[in-house]
């Protein structure tokens, strides 16, 4: 590893942390200024007496100036303390920790499906061009980007219930609870990947080095495909990282459609209840995850494409 690479990596880590800090601060002020007093909503719902509300306000530090609250919040965040839920009084970290595995499982399987499906559709669309297979793949990729996740999910449930009725004894429950939601999430995220692969590959199939390889006698087949596909992969990996972060948004809808537990539904219920520490913790997590996945993608892209290493 050269000096230059190390310096560029640390610069990226620093700018990533700055971005995460900005996103978290934005959330803090948006929630404090916009949402009003969360304790007041407890009061109005008759969930607390005025004396309890006052005590809670003091516990949460809401009776102090906003700037002090902000510094407190940042200090606690650095120490890994992201507060307690207003409704249950339990630590936000514990609540998030309970729901994290379900979402991680869904998001990881969704991402794997998105990558496989996106690569497959993209390669097919570029390779077969105007033939029916190519047109079908390009059309599917287009649908994947424009259909709402909620509707894809509902169609999937309907299709599944038809198949389930036809199968003797029904399908295994893992299909309903993991495979189906992951397929929906994966399909929805595959469209963007497929389009980048399609455009990149269409271009690189006509690039001089591919022509040269064909002139040397490399027949149109898997080896030629790999030759043309390699330079297309770095942007696909960057996009994959972006999709990984965006999957977090997709899981919100998928978890609601399939009534699956997880961070997405936790966020929606926290918003509906005005439980801002939970919302804040989830956004901080999402911003950190986004930053980390970008760094990983940059590293992977540099490993795949030597040209990027020199630029860095």
């Amino acid at each position, binding site marked *: 590893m050269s000096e230059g690479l190390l310096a560029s990596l640390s610069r990226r880590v620093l700018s990533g942390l700055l*971005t*995460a800090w*900005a*996103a978290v601060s*934005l*959330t803090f002020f*948006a*929630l404090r*200024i*916009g*949402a*009003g007093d969360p304790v007041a909503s407890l009061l109005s719902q008759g969930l607390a007496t005025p004396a309890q509300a006052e005590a809670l306000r003091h516990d949460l530090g809401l009776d102090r100036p906003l700037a002090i609250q902000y510094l407190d919040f940042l200090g606690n965040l650095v120490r890994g303390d992201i507060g307690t839920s207003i409704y249950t009084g339990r630590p936000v970290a514990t609540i998030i920790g309970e729901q994290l595995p379900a979402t991680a499982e869904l998001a990881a399987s969704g991402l794997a499906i998105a990558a496989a499906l996106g690569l497959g559709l993209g390669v097919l669309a570029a390779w077969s061009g105007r033939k029916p297979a190519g047109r079908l793949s390009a059309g599917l990729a*287009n*649908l994947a*980007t*424009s*259909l*709402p*996740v*909620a*509707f894809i999910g*509902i*169609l999937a*449930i*309907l299709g599944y*219930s038809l198949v389930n009725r036809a199968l003797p004894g029904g399908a295994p429950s893992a299909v309903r609870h993991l495979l189906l939601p992951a397929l929906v999430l994966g399909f929805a995220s595959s469209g963007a990947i497929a389009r980048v692969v399609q455009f990149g590959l269409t271009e690189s199939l006509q690039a001089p080095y591919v022509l040269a390889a064909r002139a040397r006698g490399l027949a149109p087949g898997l080896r030629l495909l790999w030759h043309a596909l390699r330079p297309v992969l770095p942007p696909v990996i960057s996009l994959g990282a972006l999709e990984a*972060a*965006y999957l*977090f*948004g*997709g899981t*919100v*809808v998928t978890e*609601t*459609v399939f009534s699956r537990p997880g961070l997405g539904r936790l*966020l*929606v219920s*926290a*918003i*509906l209840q*005005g439980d*801002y520490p939970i*919302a804040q913790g989830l*956004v901080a997590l*999402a*911003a950190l995850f*986004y*930053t980390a996945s970008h760094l990983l993608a940059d590293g992977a892209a540099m490993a795949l494409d030597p040209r990027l290493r020199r630029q860095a």
Partner: protein
Amino acid sequence: MKAGPIEILSGVWLAAVVLVAILAPTLAQHDPTQPVGPALTAPGARAGLGTDALGRDVWSRLAWGGRLSLSASLVAAALTIAIGGIAGLAAAVLGGWPERIVLWGANAMLAVPGLLLALLLVAGLGTGLPAVILSVGLGGAPGFARLARTAFLQALEGGYVDAAVALGAGKTRIAARHLLPNARATLLSLATTHFAWAFMGTTTLAFLGLAGDPSTPEWGAMLNAGSGTLLDAPWLALFPGLAISLTIVSIHNLGEHLARKGLPSSARLT
């Protein structure tokens, strides 16, 4: 560039949606919030498109719902385009620290994925349709600002800008007379993409139950309500789901058509 059958179908669908939205008060025979008969009647000749779980007329709800979904997303998209466009224009024309502030702010906001950003804004603004519109509109602004800046920077490259500067034109004049007209085609296709995004965003937030009163007819909320009776009355989810999907796909198709039309004829592929 001539419009193909897909573009024509997309245009016809969108025109129909807009027409129904405008004429909803006359086209809908029933009050969309009041029961008109037994619950869960299947679509048929007598009951029109059937009734929902509370016995309300589905056709009336769809017509009024389209009116609400369409106008909500139009307002949201207008917000996105106004805020993002002005920020992008300022960044491109002024350069220096205004540009750095816009880019830095946009990047920070984009570190929170789109839907999550809108959700977060709803958390700050409270639930209900106005909050949803504002959240979706603000949520789209950073992305639009970044892309609009790029479009304006490309328009700045033209020799006509150098000529105008040489003639002594100020920044405002260059922005109004040269940048806006020359970036128009790109901005128009960006605007359609963001309108589709706003439509998706508002209906998705409504689907998640964040648009307030569930009895209000709105396509996303109807999709959610329909998903509860999916196996007994699939049409209750299929109608609004199809309506949302067709609308988004149509906006995308027309947007791509506009983008291709905006290119000089030599750059057109087909």
